[in-house]
């Protein structure tokens, strides 16, 4: 009997929770993450912010199960994300910073790869699912194009569409608005918030984008030098008195006392 896309074998379709406890990651002698613990509730948008090199993307890779922690654990609904069986049980999608689209495949084939490889449903239904995802992201005309023919913004949207086709329970975004103009950044932020509203998907966003974080984030974690500085709601963050967090969120250009001189002193 042919399987139907809407009744695929994954019975548990609820959004998942993510629990990170005592997570540390070292590359050689360099410690990138130090004892990070946090919990992401089912269905929330959790934003991880921090200066460049603070370990945000490394943390996201650990949550996605792409790297093994040096110490500590990551659990998705109590399961280890690096175990392929966990990915069989829960659909997890990661939107990479540069898109990570398969350059040898067309946009359509990029999107159809997951359901085809996992034989989730017959080809006509896969086609419907792919075209629906492309339509949500206004990419219907790009289906036959190859990634090399797309602009940066389109690549990001294709990467989100590819994740959407997976019907994920956990959606991870790595710098979804980097290298985009303000209008496109706002568009991507709206898409992330809409997907969460419509599908109740648990969302973790790593970003530098203050507007995105404070607008769509249910809770925001600030990571500095590999350590978790705070976890707060947008309104709590606006009230914070932590000088480093204030400086990170509202940097002022001071030509009389330039910041780079302090960096050199460090």
């Amino acid at each position, binding site marked *: 009997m042919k399987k139907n896309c809407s009744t695929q074998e994954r019975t548990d379709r609820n959004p998942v929770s993510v629990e990170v406890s005592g997570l540390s990651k070292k590359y050689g002698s360099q410690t990138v993450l130090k004892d990070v613990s946090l919990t992401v509730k089912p269905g929330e948008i959790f934003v991880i912010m921090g200066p460049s090199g603070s370990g945000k993307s490394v943390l996201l890779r650990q949550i*996605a199960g792409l790297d093994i922690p040096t110490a500590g654990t990551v659990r998705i609904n109590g399961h280890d994300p690096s175990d392929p069986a966990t990915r069989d049980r829960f659909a*997890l*999608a*990661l939107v990479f910073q540069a898109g990570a689209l398969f*350059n*040898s495949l067309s946009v359509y084939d990029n999107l159809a*790869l*997951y359901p085809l*490889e*996992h034989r989730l449903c017959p080809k006509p239904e896969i086609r419907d699912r792919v075209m629906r995802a492309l339509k949500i992201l206004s990419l219907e005309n790009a289906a036959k194009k190859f990634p090399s023919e797309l602009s940066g913004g389109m690549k990001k949207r294709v990467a989100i569409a590819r994740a959407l086709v997976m019907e994920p329970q956990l959606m991870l975004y790595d710098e979804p608005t980097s290298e985009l103009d303000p209008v496109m950044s706002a568009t991507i932020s709206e898409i992330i918030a809409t997907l969460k509203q419509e599908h109740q998907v648990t969302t973790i966003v790593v970003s530098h984008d203050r507007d995105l974080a404070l607008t769509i984030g249910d809770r925001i974690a600030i990571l500095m030098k590999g350590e978790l500085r705070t976890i707060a709601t947008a309104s709590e963050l606006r009230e914070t008195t932590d000088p480093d967090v204030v400086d990170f969120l509202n940097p002022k250009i001071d030509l009389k006392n330039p910041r780079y001189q302090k960096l050199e002193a460090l």
Partner: protein
Amino acid sequence: MKQFNTIFEGLGSAVLLAYRAFVSLPSAPRIIKRVVEQVFLGGYATLPIVSILSFFIGAVLALQSGISLQNFGAKQLIGTLVGESLVRELGPLMVSILLAGRVASATTAELASMKVYQEIDALQTMNIPPERFLVLPRLLAVLLYMPILTIVGIIIGWFGGAIVCEYVGFIGVDAEQYFHSLTQFLTMSKVLDGLIKSEIFGFSIILIACNTGLRTRGGPREIGYAVTHSVVLSLITILILDYFITKALA
């Protein structure tokens, strides 16, 4: 000591890669399209260069052996010499060298780019094992096209030798005599020896290429290093394997 560690680490990861690829063999029906694509890319597209090279190797072999055997009055054995050299040694080796230069380099470059630009990570998050999606089709394809390439190469090489015999006056052996001497001592077991060699060489080359590509870390410069490393390692490996297989089959 560090170099030995690197060698054993590479060897271990290659064996593990082959194991992981063949563990997913039951899902082979869903990768048939990609196997066919790899047969085309690796086998069919390599055929013209194999043909040209084989023709001239056969021709040069006939010319060179013609000059040398003339001194011993054994010109009539040119066919035997060219035939056996191509079947047991030069055919498999030559096709393997071409495979390392043309297919292994392209494979390593492709997989290394995919690794560096996070396409492999994307596959993993989709729970699509790269070993099944990328490595297995290439390994199955090389097992299919390698004997065919080798046989085509050998036959074209024989004809290269025959044309030299027919048209180069001082050799004094015509094509008929050449083929008579070629077939006189050629047995099926010798052909099989050559095909076994070519299968082992081809499999090893593609495994090294895939393993090197998937182990690449860094940026564009490392992709270049990986390609060079893959081709050099493939050539060294097939020459070492050649000695041991020849000894085992002797």
